């Protein structure tokens, strides 16, 4: 605090100034909330509203795949017997159980196709944004959030992918069958699937994000205010 003391500011004035600052900050928050995309909290086709997202407190049980009629089931059988798609969360919850096993997996191609000499890496995201709901900001259902799984596919499959998910683009949905590896013996990549069969089950599409007129108006208004205050400040600064 200042070495040479002057009369301190009355507590009432401090309180008033504090309320003004808090009010200003609350105004910023309210303005930002008002200018968000005008969308419903849940989107049609999404999971039920009371279905929670992945909670790390949830107890995870990693069951071995059930053998058929008491027989040991081979990995190949497991693939043909199981029509269910495995989720990436299941793979990460129980990597030991799935290691070296054939799995079926489905997800949106996101990011890029990373080509290598003998194939290509694709990241397949299987959360709710990849499935029924579609990517943000088209809705306000925020129960996605996983990172998907890296999948190694053949060049032919990579060539068949036309839309890659990213900003402004919904990627193709790829259905694959392949072997999950905790650590890929060939490349040392962690928690990946080497695909042997794959097909595009749904084509991607460009995302439409209509211009928000109220947001544009607010932006212009505050830019003008900023310009006005800057000019005023410059004038006052020259007079000091």
């Amino acid at each position, binding site marked *: 605090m200042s070495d040479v003391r002057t009369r*301190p500011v009355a507590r009432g004035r401090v309180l008033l100034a504090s309320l003004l600052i808090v009010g200003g900050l609350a105004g910023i928050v309210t303005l*930002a909330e008002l200018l968000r995309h005008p969308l419903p909290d849940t989107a049609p086709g999404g999971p039920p509203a009371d279905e929670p997202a992945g909670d790390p407190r949830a107890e995870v049980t990693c069951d071995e795949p059930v053998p058929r009629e008491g027989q040991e089931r081979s990995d190949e059988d497991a693939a043909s017997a199981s029509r269910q798609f495995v989720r990436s969360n299941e793979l990460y919850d129980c990597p030991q159980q799935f290691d070296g096993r054939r799995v079926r997996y489905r997800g949106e191609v996101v990011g890029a196709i990373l080509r290598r000499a003998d194939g290509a890496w694709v990241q397949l995201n299987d959360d709710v944004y990849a499935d029924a709901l579609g*990517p943000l900001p088209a809705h306000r259902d925020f129960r996605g959030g996983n990172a998907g799984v890296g999948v190694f596919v053949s060049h032919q499959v990579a060539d068949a992918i036309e839309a890659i998910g990213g*900003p*402004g683009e919904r990627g193709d949905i790829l259905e694959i069958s392949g072997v999950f590896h905790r650590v890929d013996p060939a490349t*040392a990549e962690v*928690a990946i699937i080497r695909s042997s069969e794959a097909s595009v089950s749904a084509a991607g599409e460009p995302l439409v994000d209509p211009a928000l007129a109220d947001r544009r108006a607010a932006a212009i208004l505050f830019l003008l205010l900023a310009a006005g205050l800057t000019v005023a400040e410059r004038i006052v600064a020259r007079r000091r």
Partner: protein
Amino acid sequence: MLFRPDHRDFRLIGYYSGKVIFGVGLAMLIPLVMAVLLGERNESYAFALGVGLAVSAGRAAELFLYTRHPLSTSHGLAIVAASWLLAPVFAAVPLLLSGHYVSYLDAYFESMSGFATIGLTLVNDLDHLARSMNLWRHLMQFLGGQGIVVVVLTILASAGGRIGALYTGEGREEKILPNVVRTARFIWRVAVGYFLIGSLLLWLAVWSAGLPAFTALYHAMNLFMAAFDTGGFATQSASVGFYHSPLVEAVLLPIMVAGAASFALHYQLWQRRGGELYRNIETRTLALSITGLLIITVVGLARTATFVDLAPLFRHGFFQIVSAHTTTGLATVPGRLYVTDWGVLAPAMIVSAMALGGMAGSTAGGIKAIRVGLIVKGLRRDIRKVLLPEDAVVVETFHSTTKRILRNEQVRAAATILLLWLVLYLAGGLVGLFYGYDLQLSLFESTAAASSGGLSVGVVRPDLEWPLKVLYIAQMVIGRLEFVAVFALAGYLVAIVRGEV
């Protein structure tokens, strides 16, 4: 005696905090230009609004709170703390408007995480986030890593030497050059120099990993900011694992280490005093610590048989330990696997690495190597005292730019801060336990938030309980400012209520 603040105290705090907010507004022009160029229409409006709000607030402070009154140390500390709390308020506006955050609190969390170079994220559907918005996330790390106040020092240099008091508040103790502004400009030169070299190398690496040239350049710049500023945000939700490229990881490793090195050490290296690298107490401590933690991690991963071969074990173990120790938070492994596939020992070493952190006066967080080094030296001196005859004079020295004699006050100060860090880590862990997370998860995430480690096991997610979000935000800012500035601001609040006239 505690005095009640007078009007000059409030003017000073408001005036300089306004300058910082103005600086954040100017920084938002970069993603605004990018949004316009890429045709990201709604995002360009969002950034224009952010610029308008921040510049208005900054100019209003300049207009109505102008003062020539000199700054004291307590002013400097309070200004830094206030600026760090206020800047994310404005930076969060475009983030919320992106439509990828549940609430304003989440966007504020993300901004604080960015500025404080933490790396924990609450963004949803990152893979579809607009490029300009993703750039802003990384740019916040670049600004925060150098210190937002340092940004103000260099951009708004008219404030000149009077704002030297602000410099110390941002967790920077040493003045590399005699003049604070020159020191700040040197820090910027280092950051920009590394940015050019690092981004180029990363561009080549990411390009060779298979990304198209332009996209690779974008990824490379973002990756650089995340690595050098020890931030840990990533362009893709799979973090570095997305690239499936040992080359990208190999380029990132020295960049992360450079980010965790103090700017004083960078200055020595720029002066071609290479000997500092192996004489400096911090580099030695860091090297020993990384080696020790890596060995235990390797043993832990070998015991769990997560990796069968040594090469992948070393590759992923080393990357994770360096990322944690430099408090970067980039990962080649999905975070969930730390819990389900890495046993107990390896994650414990990751937590320890995050807790210890990088060097003082760097972009890294955590306890800092200098404190660990000084405490170990102090311990060694005490043991020698016990072993030698009573009248023997025991002098312990350490090297940090120059050779220095270890003083009791230094050891005591280091031990005090170490204790505060441990309390901060444990407090967050305790609250996590209260909300039903098990010890491993809650301690991991608490340490990641406080130390700026940024690796996550999945506790930080959009539907995390809001008190925990608030707690982690508090941990971030307390950790980034290393306690003192936050204590000073709290002191002002106490003085308002209980101070003498």
